[in-house]
C-alpha cells in the first residue's frame, strides 16, 4: 500500500522523480492540449504555427537586411535570420513558458497537487512541437535557396543539430526555473521578462553575426550560453562564421549549471509557494 508522508522542512535537494513518472499521462495530455487549444477559434488555425516564424523573418529581412543593411556574413538575409530564429524562438518559448508556469497555473495548483515540475517540463515539450514546425519551414527555404544556387555551404556539423536543440531546452528550462521561482516573490520579474528576452536576443547572434561584434563586446558572446549554439547552427547549415570550441564548451557548462541550480531553486520555492502567491 502506498504511503504518503507529509513533513515539515523537506530538503531542497530531494526531487521526487518517481512521482513525475507516475504523472506522465497528465504530462502528455497537457502537451496535447497546449498544442491544440492555442489557435482554436482563429480563422487560420494551425497555419499560425507556420506563419509566425515566416512573418518574423520577413520583418527582420525588410528592416535589418534592406533598410539598416546590417551584415549577414554574405548570406541571403532571409536564410540568415531564419537560421538564427529557429533556435532562438524555441529557446524564447521555453524560457517564457517555464518562467510563467507557476503563476499562470496558480489557480489549479492552489486546488490540487501534482508535481510542480510538470508544467515547466510541459512547456519544454510543447515548444519542441512549435520548433519542429519552424524547422520544417526553415528546411523548405533552405532547399529552395540551395537549389537556386545561393552561396551556402552545409557541412556535417548538421548532425549536431539535436544536441543544439537539447542545449537550448536546458538553458531555457534552467533560466526559466530561476525566473519562475523569483516571480513567486517578486512580481517585477514577470514585468521585466519581455525586456530581458529582448535584450538577450540582441546579445545573441540572431540579428547580427558574431563577426560584426567589436572586440570590446566579445565577452558577451562568450558568457551567453545561447550565442555559441546559434552561431554553430548557422555554420552547420549555411557555412558562415567560425564556431569557437572554447566558447561552445563554456556555453554547455553554463547551460548545465543553470539547469541544475534552477531545478534546486525551483524545488525549494514550490513547497510553500501557494502561501505567498
Amino acid at each position, binding site marked *: *500500500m*502506498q*504511503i*504518503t*508522508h*507529509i*513533513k*515539515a*522542512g*523537506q530538503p531542497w535537494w530531494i526531487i521526487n522523480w518517481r512521482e513525475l513518472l507516475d*504523472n506522465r*499521462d*497528465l504530462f502528455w*495530455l*497537457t502537451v496535447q*492540449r497546449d498544442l491544440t*487549444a492555442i489557435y*482554436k*477559434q482563429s480563422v487560420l488555425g494551425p497555419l499560425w504555427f507556420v506563419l509566425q516564424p515566416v512573418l518574423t523573418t520577413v520583418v527582420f529581412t525588410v528592416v535589418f537586411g534592406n533598410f539598416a543593411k546590417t551584415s549577414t556574413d554574405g548570406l541571403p538575409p532571409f536564410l540568415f535570420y531564419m537560421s538564427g530564429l529557429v533556435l532562438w524562438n524555441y529557446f524564447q518559448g521555453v524560457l517564457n513558458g517555464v518562467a510563467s508556469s507557476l503563476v499562470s497555473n496558480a489557480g*489549479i*495548483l*492552489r*486546488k*490540487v*497537487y*501534482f508535481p510542480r515540475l510538470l508544467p515547466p517540463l510541459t512547456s519544454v515539450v510543447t515548444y519542441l512541437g512549435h520548433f519542429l514546425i519552424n524547422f520544417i519551414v526553415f528546411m523548405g527555404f533552405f532547399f529552395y535557396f540551395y537549389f537556386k544556387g545561393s552561396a551556402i555551404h552545409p557541412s556535417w556539423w548538421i548532425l549536431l543539430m539535436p544536441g543544439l536543440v537539447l542545449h537550448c531546452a536546458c538553458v531555457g528550462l534552467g533560466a526559466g526555473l530561476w525566473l519562475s521561482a523569483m516571480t513567486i*516573490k*517578486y*512580481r*517585477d*520579474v514577470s514585468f521585466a521578462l519581455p525586456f530581458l528576452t529582448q535584450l538577450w536576443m540582441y546579445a545573441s547572434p540572431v540579428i547580427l553575426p558574431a563577426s560584426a561584434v567589436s572586440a570590446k563586446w566579445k565577452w558577451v558572446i562568450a558568457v551567453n550560453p545561447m550565442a555559441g549554439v546559434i552561431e554553430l547552427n548557422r555554420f552547420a547549415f549555411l557555412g558562415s562564421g567560425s564556431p569557437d570550441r572554447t566558447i561552445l564548451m563554456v556555453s554547455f557548462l553554463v547551460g548545465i549549471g543553470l539547469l541544475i541550480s534552477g531545478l534546486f531553486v525551483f524545488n525549494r520555492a514550490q*513547497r*510553500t509557494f*501557494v*502561501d505567498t502567491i
Partner: protein
Amino acid sequence: MSNPAISVRGLSKRYRLGEISRHTLADELTYLCHKFRRRNVAEHMGKVAFTGVSPALNQGHGNQDFWALRDVSFDVQPGEIIGIVGGNGAGKSTLLKILSRITEPSEGEAFITGRVGSLLEVGTGFHPELTGRENIFMNGTIMGMRIADIRRRFDEIVAFSEIEQFLDTPVKRYSSGMYVRLAFAVAAHLDPEVLIVDEVLAVGDAAFQKKCLGKMGDVVRQGRTILFVSHNMAAVENLCTHALWLEHGRVRMLGETSEIVEHYLGSSQITQQADSIRNRKDRQGTGRARIVDFYVTDEAGKRQNVLRPGNRYHFTLECELSANSLSLQNVVASVALTDLRNETVWLAHSKFTHEYQTLMPGVNRMTCTVNDFSVAEGVYNATLSLGQGEVETLDLITNAAEINIEGGNFFGTGSKGSPTLCKTLTRATWSLTT
C-alpha cells in the same frame, strides 16, 4: 485494521504577519539598503502587509506569527468518515491543503496510507476551449487518474453527468449547472482509498446535490476513508461517523458525529448573539436602507423572547434611511426562521402578499403580524432582509436574532407535535369512512 488510514502528528502551519512587505524587487533593495546602514527597518519602510487575516489581528505591529493550525494530532481509521467542523478561520481549509500536499506544514508530520484523492474544488483544470469529452480526460488526470482508468469508466462518468448530447461542445458554452455536473461526475469516479473533500457540494441544484451525497454514501459503503469539510450540518450528520471540531487552529473535540455537532451548534449560538443588530457588520446588500433593530411583541404589545405556537405575534423590523436621502418606494421585507441545521423552516415575505411600502428618511417600523404562529418547539435563528422591488437587496442580516419557541397549545390538546421530525405545525381534521 492495523494502521490508521490517516495519522496526523503535531501538525502546525504558521503564516508570518506584520512582516515588512518585500513583494517587489524595489522593496527588497530598499530593505537591504536600510539594513546595511543599520537603521531601524520597520521605521523607515513602515509598510506592513498581509492578506487573508481578520483586521483584528492586523492591528498588532512588529513581527507576529499567526498559527492557522497549532499542534493538531488525530488518527482516522480505514473506513471512517470524518467531518471537519469549525467556524471561519478555524483552520479547516489549511488542514485540507496540507493533507492534500498543496502546501507544506511548518511543523509536524502526517502519514496517509493508500491512494489519496482530494476534491477541494470541482472542475479544477477545466479548459474552456476543450470539449466536455476532452475535459473529462484532462480533469481526471489532474486529479491523479490514469488515462486507462478514465477510458474504462468513461461511459459511467458521462451517464452520471447527464450531459451526453453536449459531450463534444466546448465547455465554455455550458451552463454553470452543466459544468458542475460534468466536473462532479469526474470527481465521483476518482476511486481513491482516501478522499479529501472540501465544501464542494454547495454548488449545483438541489437534485444534483442529493445525487452527489448519494454517490458519496456509496463510496462510504465501499469502505473508503473520507475527510469531509462542510458547513451543512445535516450533510455532516448524515454522512460522517466521526467529527473533528477545530477552533482557532487547535482541535477542540474529536468524537462521534452527533455529540460533536450538538456541542458545536450549541457554542455557535452564543457568539452570534453577542452583537446588537445596529452594530452588526456582516451584512449583505446595497445598504441604502439598514435594519437597525428587530423584536417580537405579543397582542398586548409586550416584547417576547420566547414564543408560543398558536399565539398571535407582531414581528417588527426597524429600518433606518439616512436623513438626507429621498424616500424609498416599493420596499419589501422578510423574516425567515432557520433551525440549527441552517434549514429555513418558516418565511414571511411582504412580496408574497404584494405589500410594498414607502420608507421615509429616518427610522421606519415595518411590522408583520402573524395570527396563528405555527413553528414547533426549538431554538431558531431569524434572518432579516429588506429589498426594493424584485431586484435590489437593501440589507440582509443572516442569523440576526435567536428565537426560542416553547410551550403554547397549538393543537388545543397539549401536544407539541414532533419537533425533531417536523418543524412546522398543521392543524388537520381526520375522518373515517368504511
